[in-house]
């Protein structure tokens, strides 16, 4: 059964490949995907490991149920991050993960550095290292097309870097298809540092199923229930841009580098409905019934001829409102530019927002930036993206991400809103206290995907919240009460989802009725024959999260780093629907205490010895 899904160790120094089985005990402890990736990374992780050195392993991992009838078919790419200098990990949709499983592989561990640019061609567990001088310099979509043409197989799935990854821009992405990205934490730069342009995969192997008849029936029932949810229906029509509307209406968007948190009615220009005229249909990742992704085409005007997929909420926010840019066509075009270069749209937007605020305040001027960095200047935004990806002039400085702080003097530092040397995203968390804590404690630095409890927006009755979270949680969005519990619960739950290859949107993201551990347990049993109780799954989530925390602890990270940008504690939101909201140090610390207690970490945020023993992490 699952034993047929193997792991390939690829050494680019030695030009060698070894394919081995994944011991069942690892499946029992970590499932797959992010879980097994973290186990593998932990074997190499040390504080002095240079993320751009050949020793840093680049790990691809598909979820235990990726490629089957589950709740999505996603995968994680993991390494030490050149962007933050700490734990790096990014989750990716599309078809690549499922194709890897069809090729009989669950995980790839790529070490070393090739002398010349190469790509990997994987066909049914056979891994070939191929020279690729002519692909070097090509953008991420061209690269995929050329590999397909060369191999004469249109079904080959390719994960590649673009010029940004080649140039070691610290926030480079790994991309597949028109839009899917392992975007955050700079996995593309790790790939570039290995002279590895792409990983191409094609598989035709059977995925054996333990109980086919009952599995199909159970899946059909689960899917039907899911598709009846209003939330999934809305996602299938509007996609994630729908979330932009919520954030703008309630007041937790980042506007002009978080100087404001809503643009009020001006938001109409870039929200979900404004995207409709460009939309030519909705698309799905492999194995997903929700189809939340837009296909778009711009038919007239300045950006005529651009077609592709997206943009998602995160890109609209990061390259739009965060930069004061309300020109939707410009945002779409900027997103495409990042995608082609292989840049993470979120981090790219965040560092540009930082630079724009420094420009606004006169901390840097045009002598430094070459390009005037004015809020909402779409042309300037495009130009700066080109310069970052090509490491040209001021772009070369910003390409260093948070490490560029040293270039602009002491007064510049607090205007980069980062956590653990990793920039916050398209939102502002001064209003939603649960979101704020989740950003502070995320194991990959400021990140909403580790925990974001969107359920908190719904204002559910406390009786229901207690049932979900197992303890008292306030239904008030701006309340601190019980939010430590909420974040603890979602961190563990999301780790399990990522280890299974599931998508946030098909589980408990915005609907309390969506599938949870009980349904996961049943899907695993019917498809793989492996038995996990819901409680055992939860323990696996704890194990994954605590293992990630232990890697951060090795880096010297503790309670003092589980914090928020100074602006959140010092500046009340000046206007808009969330006016006056701020984070109280005292209340924040109370949330953190509750959160550590539930994780069974000590008051300084260090996992306790007996907890590590319980989770089998004490080796």
């Amino acid at each position: 059964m699952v034993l047929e899904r193997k792991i390939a160790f690829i050494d680019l120094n030695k030009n060698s490949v070894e394919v081995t089985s994944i011991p069942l005990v690892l499946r029992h402890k970590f499932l797959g995907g992010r879980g097994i990736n973290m186990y593998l990374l932990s074997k190499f992780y040390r504080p002095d490991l240079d993320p751009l050195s050949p020793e840093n392993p680049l790990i691809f991992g598909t979820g235990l149920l990726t490629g089957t009838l589950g709740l999505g078919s996603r995968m994680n790419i993991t390494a030490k991050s050149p962007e933050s200098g700490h734990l790096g990990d990014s989750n990716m949709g599309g078809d690549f993960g499922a194709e890897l499983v069809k090729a009989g592989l669950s995980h790839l561990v790529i070490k070393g550095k090739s002398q010349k640019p190469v790509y990997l061609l994987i066909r049914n567990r056979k891994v070939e290292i191929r020279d690729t001088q002519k692909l070097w310099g090509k953008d991420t979509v061209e690269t995929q097309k050329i590999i397909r043409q060369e191999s004469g197989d249109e079904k080959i799935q390719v994960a590649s870097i673009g010029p940004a990854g080649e140039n070691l821009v610290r926030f480079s992405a790994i991309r597949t298809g028109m839009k899917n990205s392992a975007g955050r934490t700079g996995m593309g730069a790790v790939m570039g540092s290995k002279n590895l342009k792409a990983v191409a995969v094609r598989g035709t192997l059977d995925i054996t199923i333990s109980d086919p008849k009952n599995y199909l029936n159970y899946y059909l029932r689960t899917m039907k229930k899911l598709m009846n949810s209003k939330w999934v229906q809305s996602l299938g029509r509007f996609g994630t841009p729908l979330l932009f509307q919520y954030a703008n209406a309630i007041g937790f968007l980042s506007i002009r580098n978080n100087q404001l948190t809503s643009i009020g009615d001006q938001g109409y220009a870039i929200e979900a409905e404004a995207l409709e005229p460009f939309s030519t249909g909705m698309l799905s990742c492999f194995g997903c019934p929700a189809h939340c992704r837009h296909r778009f085409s711009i038919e007239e005007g300045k950006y005529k001829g651009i077609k592709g997929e997206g943009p998602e909420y995160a890109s609209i926010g990061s390259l739009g409102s965060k930069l004061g840019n309300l020109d939707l066509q410009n945002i779409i075009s900027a997103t495409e530019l990042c995608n082609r270069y292989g840049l993470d749209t979120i981090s790219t937007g965040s560092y540009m927002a930082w630079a724009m605020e420094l420009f606004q305040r006169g901390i840097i001027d045009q002598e430094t930036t070459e390009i005037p960095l004015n809020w909402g200047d779409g042309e300037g935004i495009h130009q700066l993206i080109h310069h970052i990806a090509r490491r040209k002039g001021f772009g070369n400085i910003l390409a260093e991400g948070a490490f560029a702080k040293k270039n602009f003097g002491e007064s510049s530092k607090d205007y980069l809103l980062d956590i653990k040397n990793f920039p916050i995203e398209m939102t502002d968390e001064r209003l939603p206290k649960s979101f704020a804590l989740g950003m502070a404690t995320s194991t990959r630095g400021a990140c909403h995907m580790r925990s974001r409890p969107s359920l908190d927006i719904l204002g559910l009755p406390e009786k229901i919240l207690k049932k979900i979270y197992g303890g008292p949680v306030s239904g008030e969005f701006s309340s601190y009460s019980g939010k430590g519990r909420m974040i603890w619960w979602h961190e563990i739950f999301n780790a399990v989802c990522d280890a299974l290859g599931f998508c946030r949107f098909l589980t408990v993201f915005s609907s309390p009725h969506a599938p949870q551990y009980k349904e996961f347990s049943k899907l695993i049993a019917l498809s793989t024959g492996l038995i996990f109780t819901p409680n055992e799954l939860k323990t696996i989530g704890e194990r994954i999260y605590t293992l990630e925390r232990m890697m951060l602890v090795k880096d010297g990270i503790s309670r003092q780093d589980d914090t928020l940008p100074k602006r959140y504690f010092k500046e009340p939101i000046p206007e808009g629907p969330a006016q006056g909201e701020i984070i109280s140090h005292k209340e924040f610390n109370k949330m953190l205490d509750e959160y550590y207690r539930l994780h069974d970490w000590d008051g300084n945020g260090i996992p306790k010895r007996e907890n590590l023993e319980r989770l089998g992490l004490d080796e």
Partner: protein
Amino acid sequence: MRIKVNKDKCSGCHLCEMVCSLFHLGIINTEKSAIRIHKDDLDTSLNTPVLCRQCKEMKCFNGEKVIHPQERKKFIWNKTRAEHCPFDALSVLGEEAFHCDLCSRNPQCVKVCTPGAIQVIK
């Protein structure tokens, strides 16, 4: 009975291919499915589901002396028949071709097609 395709609605999720192989063979292998999605995912992003049209005049048999109604009920055919299909509608893997037997008049693929790109026509 046949399955009608409205390609503009196809989201490219491959769920139809997965349930087809699962229902007939007890495995998941999108290559061993009677329906397949042609994707133009690096250009127009358009998807085209392709499967047997249940033609009245079955050119796929190319003069074979077989009992047509019986053959229609079979899922695994051979590659030669696929080569004779004027619509190139059968999936082929190795020497085998996969033919839509309509799941004994209870097609599974349409049950998972949430955008409604494939529908049963009676």
